[in-house]
């Protein structure tokens, strides 16, 4: 990846990489190594001394039913967000790929939620579903459904899933649409000549051919739901009621920053790092495969 024609050795390249490397070392590598180190320690109640305990913090976590519950909850949350958001985006992309008139207008009207901050998206949905005033809550009440996400854990989970999925529709839509545009028109025309209708063409040609995009989006959506939805959870439910919406990232924040359990929080951070690394590896392997497809 070095250019065939390049500059001779000098001090200059070190100066050029210095800012990036300095920030990486100070704000990324050092804190991450601190998290690794602290995950092996236990502090006493006053924070005066600490003891090296090897992997006890991890063992404790995996014995902790609350942590395991948070793990399952996060998995459920991510899969629901990914499924809901991707299926809506797929339907919209497949129809937008067909229409000629107004295609760009539809695109403009569908992509802007990408720019809305997760916490702000949470505020919008929270307002609509506010138990006393919210419009949707009112309609649900009129239909005889008792809605109160502040008391009912399942409803709270549903609300944060809706808000998170809503925000992610535009991202998925854009990538699905790009994937569909890359399919040669001749394939679809050939199928049409053979008498396949729009639905048949979608399932037999378009859907299999965009499977690399679908897989890529699945990984990206899980990353999003794992890490970027913190704002939604924190603004709307604070992990409640009764921990019903406490996902892993929220638990790290809550145990570490609010509960001040340094060792336990650090051990949770390390587990999250392992998850990010695994997802990144999956994503990069996939990109190699996508290149092979093209």
């Amino acid at each position, binding site marked *: 990846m070095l*250019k065939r*024609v390049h500059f001779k050795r*000098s001090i200059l390249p070190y100066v*050029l990489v210095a800012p990036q490397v300095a920030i990486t070392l100070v704000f990324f590598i050092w804190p991450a190594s601190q998290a690794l180190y*602290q995950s092996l320690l236990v502090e006493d109640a006053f924070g005066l001394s600490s003891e090296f305990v090897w992997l006890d913090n991890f063992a404790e976590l995996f014995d902790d039913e609350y942590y395991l519950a948070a793990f399952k909850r996060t998995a459920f949350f991510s899969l629901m967000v990914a499924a809901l958001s991707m299926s809506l985006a797929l339907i919209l992309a497949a129809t937008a790929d067909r229409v000629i008139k107004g295609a760009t207008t539809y695109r403009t009207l569908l992509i802007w939620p990408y*720019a809305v901050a997760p916490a702000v998206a949470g505020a919008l949905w929270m307002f609509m579903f506010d138990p006393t005033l919210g419009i949707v809550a009112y309609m649900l009440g009129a239909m005889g459904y008792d809605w109160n996400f502040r008391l009912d854990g399942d409803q709270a989970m549903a609300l944060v899933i809706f808000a998170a999925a*809503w925000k992610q529709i535009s991202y998925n839509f*854009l990538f699905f649409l790009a994937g569909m545009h890359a399919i040669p028109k001749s394939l679809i025309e050939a199928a049409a000549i053979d008498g396949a209708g729009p639905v048949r063409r979608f399932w037999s040609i378009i859907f299999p051919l965009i499977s690399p995009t679908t897989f890529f989006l699945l990984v990206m959506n899980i990353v999003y739901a794992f890490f970027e939805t913190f704002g939604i959870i924190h*603004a709307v439910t604070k992990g409640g009621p009764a921990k019903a919406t406490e996902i892993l990232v929220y638990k790290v924040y809550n145990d570490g920053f609010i509960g001040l359990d340094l060792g336990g929080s650090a051990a949770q951070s390390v587990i999250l790092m392992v998850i990010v690394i695994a997802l990144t590896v999956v994503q990069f392997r996939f990109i190699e495969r996508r290149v092979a497809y093209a």
Partner: protein
Amino acid sequence: MIENRPITNIVSHLVLIVGVLIVAFPIWITFVAASHDAVRMTQVPLPLLPGDQFFINLKSAFVEGVGNAREQSVGLMLMNSLVMALMIAVGKIAISILSAYAIVYFDFPFRMGFFWLIFITLMLPVEVRILPTFKVVADLGMLNNYWGLSVPLIASATATFMFRQVFLTVPDELLEAARIDGAGPMKFFKDVLLPLSRTNIAALFVILFIYGWNQYLWPLLITTDKSMYTIVMGIKQMLEAAEESPEWHLIMMSTLLAMLPPVLVVVTMQKLFVKGLTETEK
């Protein structure tokens, strides 16, 4: 389109219109709420059509502030967000383009070591190292200021990769020609590479501006001083206050103001946005 069947066309448009309506419904409700007065916003059912208080609410939120954050006007929080977003976007682009230039165009010891070091940042989002990073920033005395808000976020593996990709497609002949004309490394960078990567920089800027504007967890950790609140976390403070005294008309006005800048950027610079999104994910 392959065949021209009026029925399928109508169905397609219907599906898209329903989709657009679902996506836009929360915003419509927000806009309506922002245009009514406090009294109307406590009567169930809430209105579905806009009222006439929009500009009064706008002025009240912008100048006086809302709820707990009342000491801070929305205008000031918008300003903080803007400074933070610009610092993050410009900072990320600047340090990434320089390091990509060094890695692609210079042969020096530990070149690949630096590359992998930058690569690792991809795997360490703030969310997984909350406490230790906070401690570093606190020790450096960077709490409650713009440097603390932006500098720890500006290392970027994705931006470095993107510029590396762009530089690798630049023909070698350009450097040879520049050399013959007597240009040194910095002149070559400034007069050849920078102009060539102009659209990439713009596309990246759009994505990074949105990224910076929408930061939530980081400002939440390191700002305790109300004068440093960003708008996105300001909204959260307002929601908290709303449990006691709901001022939904003002909260929703602030929400509108909070999403307006990034949404405008996406809609007006759509081409650059799509380019930036697809390029940085590669």
